[in-house]
């Protein structure tokens, strides 16, 4: 399996500030994704992190609000910009490899905006 380390695991932030979440994988992966999960809800895909090019965002998510980097095959960051209380959620990193038939998920980052 792929081991994913997400940092920070949780944070409390002031509105108007930004937080960058890191996702580190223990092996090279083909695809990396970022999800958001609001309390009691299912996961919503934010974007696909593409190595060497701009991320591909899902409907309702934009680069200015959620800039994403993926400098190599094992690392990605998601920034939540200009935060408001509505951004309070769990943010999860997910990866897949060509040889696997499943996706692997990090433990998530629990963000609270006050």
């Amino acid at each position, binding site marked *: 399996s792929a081991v*994913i380390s997400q940092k920070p695991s949780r944070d409390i932030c002031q509105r108007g500030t930004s937080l960058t979440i890191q996702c580190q994988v223990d092996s090279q992966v*083909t*695809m990396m*994704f970022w999800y958001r999960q609001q309390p009691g809800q*299912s*996961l*919503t*895909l934010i974007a*696909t992190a593409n190595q060497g090019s701009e991320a591909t965002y899902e409907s309702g998510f934009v680069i200015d609000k959620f800039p994403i980097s993926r400098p190599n095959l094992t690392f990605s960051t998601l920034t939540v910009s200009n935060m408001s209380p509505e951004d309070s959620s769990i943010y*999860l990193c*997910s990866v*897949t490899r060509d040889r*696997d*038939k*499943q*996706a*692997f*998920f*990090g*433990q*998530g980052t*629990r963000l609270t905006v006050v």
Partner: protein
Amino acid sequence: LAKTTQPISMDSYEGQEVNITCSHNNIATNDYITWYQQFPSQGPRFIIQGYKTKVTNEVASLFIPADRKSSTLSLPRVSLSDTAVYYCLADSSASKIIFGSGTRLSIRP
């Protein structure tokens, strides 16, 4: 990616067998059926995947009828630790996963 429908919630007791059924009427020929389990404060984890008939592993069994329009995840002799949300997916790709609502399973002593 086929739309899936599964019960919002289910309750059971320790030691019972739990069957969660998922409907995927518009499943495509190259779609696989995959189930993920999510415990509170954790990311989802893969449980089982199948294409047709029956698949069994150390965690669960997956039953898929010939028409593939539905599937049933079977958890034998559940314990309190099986309390989780279970997601059913019908897709040809293991990568970009679009999650449905899932089934919230509660196990009681």
